[in-house]
């Protein structure tokens, strides 16, 4: 579903932050993406959710060559990807419920059709009582759960999560990981970027390790 061959990325005229990165992500697979700070994890994630294009090399996403994608085809592809950001990126003027429902609203779905699904998911991530409050009054952990709920509400084919358990206690971290595994079991390919060695040790999954812009893969 994702294939990168000798991909390089640089910002402007700066040095390459990703060098000769080659790997592929299969449908329904589960992997951790790890590496020290500044290794290029976030840049790689941005490549994968089409916020950036590689400066060299070949990259294909859902069997589309990224280099030849038109701007108008980007939204359709992005709808197949769920993204959890390290800084959550919740819209502060919308309620938790509206934030989680945003991808469905953007698709033009009727609120009556998705209301139960959204409330059910909110309830499951422990935000059932916080559905109608705005993000500024949520704790860091609650914001993170809302961000995860927004990313998974459409049951995307690919889920990219940047440090999704960084702000929650170990019990909730395990619980959220279980959500990711359940999604994975239903066919979603998952990539979790994390520094948390302990978390990775709990699960036997493929590891993509970035170091100094280069990729090492441990299957």
């Amino acid at each position: 579903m994702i294939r990168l061959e000798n991909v390089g990325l640089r910002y402007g005229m700066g040095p390459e932050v990703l060098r000769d990165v080659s790997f592929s992500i299969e449908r329904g697979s589960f992997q951790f993406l790890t590496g020290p700070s500044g290794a290029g994890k976030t840049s790689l994630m941005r490549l994968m959710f089409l916020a950036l294009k590689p400066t060299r090399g070949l990259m294909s996403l859902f069997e589309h060559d990224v280099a030849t994608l038109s701007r108008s085809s980007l939204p359709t592809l992005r709808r197949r990807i769920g993204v959890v950001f390290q800084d959550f990126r919740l819209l502060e003027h919308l309620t938790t419920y509206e934030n989680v429902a945003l991808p469905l609203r953007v698709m033009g779905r009727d609120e009556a059709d998705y209301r139960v699904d959204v409330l059910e998911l909110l309830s499951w991530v422990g935000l059932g009582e916080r559905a109608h409050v705005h993000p500024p009054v949520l704790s860091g952990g609650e914001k993170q759960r809302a961000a995860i709920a927004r990313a998974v509400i459409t049951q995307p084919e690919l889920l990219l999560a940047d440090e999704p358990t960084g702000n929650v206690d170990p019990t909730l971290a395990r619980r959220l990981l279980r959500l990711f595994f359940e999604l994975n079991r239903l066919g979603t390919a998952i990539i979790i970027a994390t520094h948390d060695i302990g978390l990775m040790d709990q699960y036997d999954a493929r590891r993509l390790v970035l170091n100094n812009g280069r990729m090492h893969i441990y299957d």
Partner: protein
Amino acid sequence: MASDPRDQAPPVAADADPAAAEAEIEDVQDVAATPHPRPNPIVPPTSLASRALFFVVAIMSFLACITVGAVAVIGDAASEWQTDIAQEVTIQVRPMNGEETRQALAELVALVRGMPGVSEARALSEDEIRDLLEPWLGAGAEFDELPVPRLVVVEIDRDNPPDIGEMRRLVQSAVPGASLDDHDRWQSRLRVMANTLVAGGLGILLLVLSATVLSVVFATRGAMASNRDVVEVLHLVGAKEAFIARQFERHFLRLGFKGGLAGGILALATFGVISWIVGQFAATPAGDQIDALFGPMSIGWPAILGILGTIILVALLTAITSRLAVFHFLKVFD
């Protein structure tokens, strides 16, 4: 809550504990059944610097409507002048001694009355000539001692106008020294003046609308920049450009319409006040002068329709401009 949701399986899981899942679903359905508040707009309205732009659009709309109304008043007045002037021609008889003049006038009146296309002809009396010259010569001027020409006013049938060239020839052969003036020079001057004023008005209208467009472009860019995070999130959850543009466009259409309407109503009120003030001077020399220059100084239905059209134009222009500005922003943003 029926139970702590943290103890349950995720809603996407197939192997959830059936009893707990059922309890949770019932709970959720209870919440779902309660009336849900109206969804918040995706772009927060308070972040769009609306008030300043509202006043800019209102002022621009006011100026545009005043221009449209003024052009309509001037156009009506010019057309009235032209109609009045085109309805008559004047025959001027050079001063002769009293008896000869009277004979010449009677002959000319009889001559032109008999011509096809003439509805009425009459010689202006000495008193009427005196009234005409009074503003220049004063009330006490003695006309008998002055070589004052006499005039015959000929009203023509506009539907079946006479042959002016033929009339001129006949008049000159009947009374040597008489001349016919069909006011063509005045008419063409009036036409040029009226057309210049209308063209000037349209130019001002164009400038005002251009200024409105530019203000909206700047305001939209500002709104987009201050909502960059919203646009970014919308992009990432797969919103199409048209969807994002619609969120902004809706706001600007509403704002443009409100601003346009406020300016338009103010312009109509201004014309109403001017009309009232002119009404206060009715039957006074100043009022007569204004009436002679601008007609009744009230705007008719065409002008009101023009003003309503301007309000709609301002609203549409605001919405279309903001839509184009949003698309431009998104193109650069990508």
